[in-house]
Every structure is written in C-alpha cells, then in structure tokens.
C-alpha cells in the first residue's frame, strides 16, 4: 500500500517538524487553504497536515470532514463547519453570521477516506487526553489494523507516559505478529512484547495465529501464551486473596463485638446485628445533620459518627444488660430467646422511625475512587475497611490487656467470686463489658454503612456469619476471631469462582458445621478449668 507508506512518511516528517517547531506546526492555515482548493489530492494532503499539526481544532475538522459537515466558501475560500445551529469558522470555532450564500461541501473520495481513517487513528493516538490515547491503543491491539502501524510507531516515539507507551507497544507487536510479510525474528520479538501485556486478550491473540504461520513463530507465541496464563492465574489468586481479606475484615468487624459479649462473657446476644444497624443509622443521622447544617464538614462525617455510634450502641447495650440480661446469667438458651425478641423490637422500632426503605449513606471523598495494583483495582473504601477493622481489633486488645478496666473485665470473667472479693464491682463490670461489645458493634456499623444497604434488616444479614466466625475461631479468644474471620473470608472468595457466590457460602456453612463436630470448641479452644464454667 504505497499510499499508506507515503502518508506515513509525511506524517513522520510532520511529527519531526512538530517536535522541532511547535509554534510553526500549530499553524493550520496552509492545510485549510488546501481544503478549499477543491481537489482530492489537496484534500488528502490537508488531512495528513492536520493529523500532524497538533492543533486543538484538528480532530474536530477531520471528524467534520468524515461526517460531510465540512464546507468551504467558493468566494472567500474560508473553511467552515456546519453545526446544528449554524456554521462556525473551522480554525477558531467562532460562529459566523450571517451564513455565507456560496458554501459547498468539501468532497471526499476513497483516497481521502483512507487518509481520514489513518488521520483519525493518529489524532486519537496522539490526543492530548491520556485516557483517549490508551483507548485508541487498545482498539488497535484488538483490531490489528495493519494500516495503523506507521502511526503507532510515530506515537510510540512521542509518548511520554510509560503505561500508554506499553499499550502502544503491545498494539504495535500485535500488528507485527499477525503480519505475514514481517520477518520471523520480528514476529518472535512481537510475541515477547505481547506477553508483557499479560491479559486474557493477549492469550487470545497469541493463540489465534493461522496454521500457515512458521513453526518458530507459533512456538514463541505458544510459550508466551503459557507464560501469560501462569501470570493470570497468579494474579487471580492474588485477587481472590485480596477480596478474601476484604470480606474477612468485614466479618471481623461484625464479629468482633460478639467476640466480647459471646466469647468473653458467654452471653448469646442475638441482638448483636441490631447494634451494628444502630451504628449505621447513627452514621445516617450524622450525615443528614451535616448535609443540612454544615456541608463543609462532610468529609469528617464518619469521624464524627464513630464516637456517637459507639455511645448509642453501647448505651443501648448497657440498658439491655441492666434490664434484661443480668436476670438471665447462667441460662444461655433463655438469653438467646430474650435477645432475639429484643432484636425484633429494635428492628421494628427503627422501621417505625426511619421507614422500611434503604437509607442513603454517602462516602467521604477520601474513600471514593480506587487504586490499581497491576490488573487489580481496589476501591479505597474496601482498603480503609481492612485498615479500620485491624485498628479496631488492636485497639480492643489494648483495652483488654493494658487498661485497668480491661484487667477488671478479664478478672470478672475468669473468677467472678474472687474478683468480687478483691473489691471489683462485678455488676458494674458486667454492664461495662457488655456495653463495650455493643459499642464496638456500633462502630462496625459506621464502617459497614459504607458497603451495605442501611436498612432495618442490616443486622440480620450479619448475625449468623458473626456467630460462625466466633464459634469457628474459638470462644473466648480474640485472636481466634481474627484468624477465623480472615480464613472464612479468604476461603469464601476462593470457592466463589468454582461454585458461585451462593453455593460457596453454603459450602462454607457446611464446612463450619462439620468443623464444629470435629472441634466443638473452635480453632483455638480455651484449655483447662475455665472450659466448662
């Protein structure tokens, strides 16, 4: 295709000029004059000029020519664009009124169309917008358009962004690999470059070579495809692990309060999920107040909601402990039923106050968006929840191990009578411990409001999972809860690709049921005298 070659040479030349003399190259008056000359050869040359000009209006003019909206005034030789509302000057975009009477369209033939297609590709490949450049490179990678090769090479030479450069090089390699008249060496090299791209499209391309391809090229392509597949498998494992940790941290957040009330105190609190829900609704109320009163504080809304959620849920927890649970110590099954009743009451109360519909809880700016590791994209929200869950966990460990209140809590759960004899007010500590567990559930609610629907049923979806985590990890052991939550999260995500989300969850439940048969006291069972107490 000699035209293409010529075009490419012209393009290359213009690009060099463009680098050397940007101010001069930006001038498109010459190209416009050629467009107004009403000859196919001049029009094609003008298109090439425009493509290389780097002028901000170049893409608009070329697109208009493609759509047949580019016109010129036979009298003044002015080139104009026809738009929905009238005509505008091609070079400046300024509206022209009144519309000149002697306008006629710039005509195109197949030669001009070919030039136009190449110019459009070049203009997007060299568009000032990086996202567009990347998109264009990917499009060429998929279409393997042989005609785009010269433009690609020009674009590679010019590209400054490393990622887009890689995408351009992959596109160039794709073109060379599928080009029967390229040398074997070049094609083997190309297979190597495509391997760098490392995604499913690359595998598809490497495997799609026709059977008349020389064996050396085919082998190279096959090796590259295998390597890419290994990479992909690794990345997908990494993704599963990452999503698993994310799910695990959600489970950890939901279960960690339960690890205190159930694990440490032995209270079966079926209203635990509702404490999470109260925390989420506290976030909602805080955000509503901020939205209406002081919108500037919105990014701080979660930070403000955290202590409030702790106080609300913790307060309700203390109230429940003082009015109901303290009469039921030593009767775990009755506690279970009473707290289940409480959970129904709390759900209905929230439904009465806030309505049954989902409530909108917004994300502050630092939690929106995502970051990329290789082919993986992780939203900041998820990442913050992982960090937050670990922070809450460590904070709780510190409270229990390093503060006097924590010391008293542990003393009361280990030996109530002795603690009482040492002057610890055991009823007070009971209420405090239960309040702490519920308050942490409230904090979890603030975080979960970011990833889940805030509705009266929010808590119910977590209660069974939370119990599973605590029982699996081992009752009375916070570290067991951490390990249990992360294990269940990761196992769940690794099962999902094979079994689907629902079946994966069922399998995990069945696994836990079987696991409890084997180790009725969980992963990290307490040993010794405290076990049956």
């Amino acid at each position, binding site marked *: 295709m000699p035209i293409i070659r010529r075009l490419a040479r012209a393009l290359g030349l213009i690009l060099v000029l463009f680098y050397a003399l940007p101010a001069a190259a930006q001038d498109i008056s010459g190209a416009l004059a050629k467009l107004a000359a009403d000859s196919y050869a001049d029009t094609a040359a003008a298109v090439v000029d425009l493509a290389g000009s780097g002028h901000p209006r170049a893409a608009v003019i070329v697109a208009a020519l493609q759509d047949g909206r580019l016109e010129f005034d036979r009298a003044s030789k002015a080139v104009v664009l026809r738009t929905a509302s009238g005509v505008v000057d091609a070079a400046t975009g300024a509206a022209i009124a009144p519309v000149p009477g002697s306008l006629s369209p710039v005509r195109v033939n197949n030669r001009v169309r070919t030039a136009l297609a190449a110019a459009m590709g070049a203009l997007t490949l060299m568009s000032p917008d990086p996202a567009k450049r990347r998109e264009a490179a990917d499009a060429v990678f998929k279409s393997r358009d042989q005609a785009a090769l010269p433009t690609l090479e020009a674009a590679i030479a010019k590209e400054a962004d490393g990622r887009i450069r890689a995408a351009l090089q992959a596109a160039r390699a794709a073109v060379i690999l599928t080009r029967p008249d390229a040398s074997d060496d070049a094609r083997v090299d190309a297979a190597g470059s495509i391997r760098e791209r490392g995604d499913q499209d690359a595998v598809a391309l490497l495997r799609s070579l026709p059977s008349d391809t020389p064996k050396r090229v085919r082998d190279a392509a096959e090796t590259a495809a295998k390597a890419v597949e290994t990479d992909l498998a690794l990345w997908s494992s990494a993704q599963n692990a990452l999503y698993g940790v994310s799910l695990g941290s959600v489970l950890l957040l939901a279960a960690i309060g339960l690890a205190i009330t159930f694990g440490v105190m032995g209270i*079966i609190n079926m209203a635990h999920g509702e404490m999470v829900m109260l925390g989420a609704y506290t976030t909602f109320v805080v955000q509503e107040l901020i939205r209406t009163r002081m919108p500037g504080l919105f990014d701080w809304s979660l930070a403000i909601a955290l202590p409030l959620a702790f106080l609300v849920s913790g307060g309700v927890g203390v109230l429940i402990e003082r009015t*109901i649970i303290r*009469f*039921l110590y030593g009767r*775990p*099954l*009755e*506690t*279970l*039923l*009473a707290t*289940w*009743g*409480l*959970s*129904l*009451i*709390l*759900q*209905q*109360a929230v*439904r*009465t106050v806030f309505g049954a519909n989902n409530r909108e809880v917004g994300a502050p700016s630092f939690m929106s968006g995502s970051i990329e590791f290789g082919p993986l994209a992780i939203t900041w929200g998820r990442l913050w929840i992982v960090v937050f869950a670990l922070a809450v966990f460590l904070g709780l460990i510190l409270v229990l191990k390093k503060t006097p209140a924590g010391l008293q809590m542990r003393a009361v759960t280990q030996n109530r009578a002795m603690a009482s004899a040492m002057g610890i007010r055991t009823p007070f500590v009971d209420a405090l411990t239960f309040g702490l567990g519920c308050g942490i559930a409230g904090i979890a609610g603030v975080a979960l409001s970011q990833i889940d629907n805030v509705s009266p049923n929010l808590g*119910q979806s977590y209660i*069974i999972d939370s*119990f*599973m985590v605590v*029982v699996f990890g081992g009752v009375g052991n916070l570290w067991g809860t951490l390990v249990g939550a992360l294990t269940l999260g990761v196992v769940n995500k690794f099962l999902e690709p094979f079994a689907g989300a*629902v*079946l994966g*969850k*069922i399998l995990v*439940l*069945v696994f*836990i*049921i*079987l696991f*409890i*048969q*084997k180790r*009725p006291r969980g992963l990290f069972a307490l040993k010794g005298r405290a076990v049956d107490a």
Partner: protein
Amino acid sequence: MIGHFLFRGLDRGVVVALTVILAIGVLVPAANLLLPPGHPLHVPTYLVTLFGKYATYATLALALDLVWGYCGILSLGHGAFFALGGYAMGMYLMRQIGSRGVYGNPLLPDFMVFLNWKELPWYWLGFDRFGFAALMVVLVPGLLAFVFGWFAFRSRVTGVYLSIITQALTYALLLAFFRNDMGFGGNNGLTDFKDIVGFPVQAAGTRAALFFLSCLLVAASLLLAAGIVKSKFGKVLIAIRDAESRTRFIGYRVATYKTVVFTVSGVLAGLAGALYVPQVGIINPSEFAPANSIEAVIWVAVGGRGTLTGAIVGAVAVNWGKTWFTGALPEFWLFALGGLFVVVTLFLPKGIVGTIAEIRAKRTAAAAAAPKPAPAE
C-alpha cells in the same frame, strides 16, 4: 398393655387435650360442611384453613418441645424439617398439575419449562405417586435429622453451640433452595396446586378433610410424645436434660438417645410441613428462614416447655395473636412478638401451662399441709 397405657398411663391433661383436639377435628369441618352459610354456628372455609394451619404449627411445636422440653436440645432449625416435609408434598402436588400448568407441559412443572429445562431431574422422579411422596415426607426430614444428630451428638456438641449450628443448617438450606438451579422453583417455590389424591385442593370438602387430618396428626403426635415421655426411654431423656454428664457416667449412651429423639422429632415436623403445604397452597424457601424456626421456639416457651399440652396451647395462642395483630395493628406485631420473647423468658419461664400446673400443685400442697395442725389440738 396398650389399653393400660391409654387409660392409666396418660396424664389427665393429655387425655383432655386429646379429646378436645379430636372433637374440634370433627366438629369444625362438620360446622363448615353441614350448616348453611347463614347459620350462626357456620364456620367459613377460610377459618377451617386457618385452624388447619394452626394445627400443623401445633405439631411442629410438639416436635420441638419433645427435644427441647424433654431432652434439652434447643433446635433453632426445626423449620428446616418442616419445610423439607412441605417440599416433598409440594413436589407431589406439582406433579399432579400435569398439563394444566401455564405452559401445558405434561411432565415438567412450569418453572422448569420457564428455565428451559428439557427433562425432569432425577430427584423429581417418583413424586407423581402419592405413596412415594408420603414416604419421602417421612424419610427426607428423618434422614437429615438422623445424620445431623448422629454427627452432632456423637461429638458432644451441646447447648448454644448446637443451637447455632442448627441455625446454620437451616440458613444453608435457605440459601440452597433460593437457587434456581437446585430445581425447586427458586425463590417462588412451588405453588398453583390443583389436585391432591384426585380431589381439588381448593374445594371446601378437601379443606375440611385436610383439617381433620391435621387434627389427627396433632392427636397422634401428642399420643406418641406422651408415650415416649412416660416410658423408660423418656425418663432417660429427662435425665440427659438435667444432668447429661451424670447420665453418661451411669452408662447410658447419651448420643444414641439424643439421636433417636431428634430423628423422631424431625419426622413429626416433616409430617406437619406436608399437611401445611396443601392448606396454605405454597411452599417457598422463606420457610427455611432462621426467624421462622426461632418463632416456633417461642410458641413452645409461651405454652410451657416440658409440658406437651403447653406446646399446642402456645402454638395456637401465639399464632392467633399473630393473625389478630397483623390484621388490626400490623406495625405492632413485631413489637408484640419481641416483647413476648422477653417477657416469657423473664417472668414466665415455665410458660402458661407450666405456671398453671405450678399454681395448682402449690394449692394442693397447701391444702394437704393446712389441716395437719388441727388434729394436734
């Protein structure tokens, strides 16, 4: 010996309950079918169906009371057995629709045609025969209860751990039955039934017969449970409830006892579910919801656990309340139900029947104790 058991071995309360249940089972259908609609004692068909539903709930409560009240096993997953029995019956009823479905496929139920299935899955085979379906109603819940109990009780999973894994069991089944590819109609479940053993499901006569059968099932379950509780086997169950380790050390195989009673209870729950479905006209996965199973526990708690008649009283009373509340004050029903959980556990741990029995026992004791000082004078 059976005669001895029937007339001497039973509590007066159980005998009274049996009589009342059977009387209702005969009188209500009679009042529905024989009396004209304008008659003051006429019972409309919707009430017959409603009472029939209560009767199946009462059987479920009895089954639960047998394991919880007498053996200390708090199952939060009895709804699973109930629903499995219901699904087995529902599958039979689906096969009876035949070519009268929306798509008119003689073999496949509508939802399978809708999902573009070409043939019947193997586990649907045989359900066109009532005998086979009836067998499955007993076998499927019974087998699940047996296998689950076998594993759980042998590894000595007790107390709240057992409660939590029974809840996990029914939750797992809930998720499973929601899946369309399971072949049980997904979240719509099975519905649009036409015939049961040749009689139209909607007809008043069929409803009356189903009601009578439900009452018969309650009575039979009560008799069976009373027999179990009175027997030596039942005494061991109570011993396990009160002191499991001690019973084991004496030499009883605790796990075997528990597994047997759990299986019997699962079968009863399954039978109740099988009678529930044709009366309600639908079975869907929400019957597996953990909340349903816990609600059944509160029926037993309200009536009085460890008293067989209490389970029946509790199931009927709570569901009557539910029907009334959801009609008159729908938004307050959950407050009432939640409050019931709290109040019963705090103030009425023995339930209605248990508390009445206690008061009566105290009065008798007081009456026996009071005259004593008199002769001393």
